[in-house]
């Protein structure tokens, strides 16, 4: 009992000292808490459904950021990984009868392969060429899928997939927790030494080479990691919708990913996730005005970018937090002195 109390007190101190001191962390904490207790508030199947799909897209947007935001390899065909993950896990589920908890990771492994296949030619192509070229990959895959209707179901896609669970709340927790874990892993990756190298590759690839780093290996790693996470998102999506169709590969899907990420602010991981959680429900909840949904979406994106070209979340963070000029620790914007080194903030 005493031990439990000790850990409880430790947790409280941790939350007080590390989470509550910064509004951004507080918001993230509250948000995670909200996600976890949401089924207690409402069990409306429609809302639960939207939250599940939103969390799947959040994984997708974060995985784009991992590749394009961090290493600067602008991928405008990110739907490829999503679609490959979806189709691969669907095929494994339908033909090899592997249950979802096996087919999704295996599908993601196939998406890693896709990452390698796309990544190798992309090593030679740079900047805007890369962005314009990557558009092509999902389209080519759609062609292949249509050419092999016996295996892929052609235009109709593969349907009749197993779900993880038929329980509404159970499904919700599976997806939300997967999302939280995967996004945390991605954030950790970008926060690690590997993340620093990814950052540096975006800034100046030649200088990274001259520092003795095998940039080819790291760029491929970025493609594979990104493919893996996007593949999981694809697999989850296919199993949740119970269908894997060509719509997962469409141009609009690739566009959406990029819009989410840049809207939130690239090279942050949390930016794209937040953007998905803002934009996607917004898109869904305007159902009282269905014909203007996309229009509202586009106008919102345009207006936000006009005033915050660096991304919404980045902008908000700059407003509510301030960096200490001496020790570089972040502080609430209203503080007069740094919370650690007591230097004056301006």
């Amino acid at each position: 009992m005493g031990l439990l109390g000790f850990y409880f007190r430790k947790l409280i101190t941790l939350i007080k000292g590390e989470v509550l001191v910064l509004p951004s962390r507080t918001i993230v904490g509250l948000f995670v808490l909200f996600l976890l207790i949401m089924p207690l508030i409402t069990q409306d199947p429609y809302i639960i459904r939207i939250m599940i799909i939103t969390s799947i897209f959040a994984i997708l947007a974060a995985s784009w950021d991992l590749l394009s935001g961090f290493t600067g390899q602008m991928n405008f065909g990110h739907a490829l990984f999503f679609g490959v993950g979806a189709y691969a896990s669907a095929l494994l589920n339908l033909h090899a009868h592997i249950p979802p908890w096996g087919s999704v990771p295996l599908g993601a492994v196939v998406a890693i392969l896709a990452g390698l296949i796309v990544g190798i030619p992309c090593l030679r192509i740079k900047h805007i060429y890369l962005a314009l070229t990557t558009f092509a990959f999902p389209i080519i895959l759609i062609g292949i899928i249509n050419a092999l209707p016996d295996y892929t179901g052609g235009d109709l896609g593969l349907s009749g997939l197993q779900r993880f669970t038929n329980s509404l709340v159970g499904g919700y927790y599976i997806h939300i927790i997967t999302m939280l874990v995967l996004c945390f892993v991605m954030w950790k990756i970008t926060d690690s030494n590997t993340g620093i190298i990814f950052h540096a590759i975006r800034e100046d690839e030649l200088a990274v080479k001259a520092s003795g780093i095998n940039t080819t290996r790291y760029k491929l790693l970025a493609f594979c990691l990104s493919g893996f996470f996007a593949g999981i998102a694809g697999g989850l999506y296919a199993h949740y919708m119970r269908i894997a169709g060509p719509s997962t590969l469409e141009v609009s899907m690739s566009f959406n990913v990029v819009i989410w990420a840049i809207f939130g602010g690239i090279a942050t991981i949390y930016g794209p996730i937040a953007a998905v959680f803002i934009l996607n429900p917004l898109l869904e909840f305007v159902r009282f005005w269905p014909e203007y949904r996309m229009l509202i979406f586009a106008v919102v994106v345009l207006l936000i970018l006009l005033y915050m070209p660096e991304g919404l979340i980045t902008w908000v963070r700059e407003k509510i937090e301030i960096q200490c000029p001496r020790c570089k620790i972040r502080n609430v914007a209203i503080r007069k002195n740094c919370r650690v080194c007591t230097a004056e903030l301006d």
Partner: protein
Amino acid sequence: MNIIITGLITGSMLALLAIGFSLIFGVARIVNIAHTAFYMVAGYIIYYLSIRLGLNVILSMLIAVVAVTLLGLLAYKFLIDPIREHELAVMIATIALALIFQEVTLQIFTGDYLSVYFLIKGYFIIGGNKVFYQQLLTFGVVLVILLVIWFLLMKTRLGLAIRSTAEDREVANLMGMNESRLAMITLGISVALAGVTGAVIVPLAVLSPYMWTEPLILMMAVVVLGGLGSIKGSFVAAYILGFTEALVTFLIPAGAFLKGPVALSIMILVLLIRPEGLFGIAFEEER
């Protein structure tokens, strides 16, 4: 024979679009995803004026081109120019712009497929294939416009300034060229080209609010394949991809859906050999 006609027409259309797209990219570094959306808007304006209002088709085409150009300039002034130095934000802004165009046309004209009458009716037969006069006319107009563009770029003072700015913004400034005004003018020309493409292609195509995505992908493939900023490259690449598409449709009639993927595969294969495109200039490591 059909291959040649379809190939020529698709190729010409792609060439017009791609040249407009690479012009504005070259001068102002703007990747205008909404480029083909302007093409769609032009198509709809023509439809509205000629079919709904019963205006003369040629007149409506002219109005459409002017209207689209104005629309482009307004969008540039108020939406693109303020964030021009954030390349990514610009790209997203143009995507959003394209979506807005798509949704607005969807609201006004619904998602039904629409078409405009041929300007001239009739056809002749060569080797058992129908060749519509309209197809010939379209092709002829495209050629004339390509010539005009070539003349504008190569022989006029404005063209000289545009090409100079595209090559070296700073030195162009030193020659007394007002770089930001040129960007505006180039954007106007670029969008006007998209409008013209819409105008000439509309009698042959069916209109739908989603018609901008397919040519967008191919147009970008043309630009990359030909080498960014190379007009000659865009021209050649457009016909290569145009004919590839026609050939695929001809060889595998059941596999018409493959035409896009095959064309794109060709682009990727070429890029593997020449990463800078057919006529592009290789990146050389700075000295």
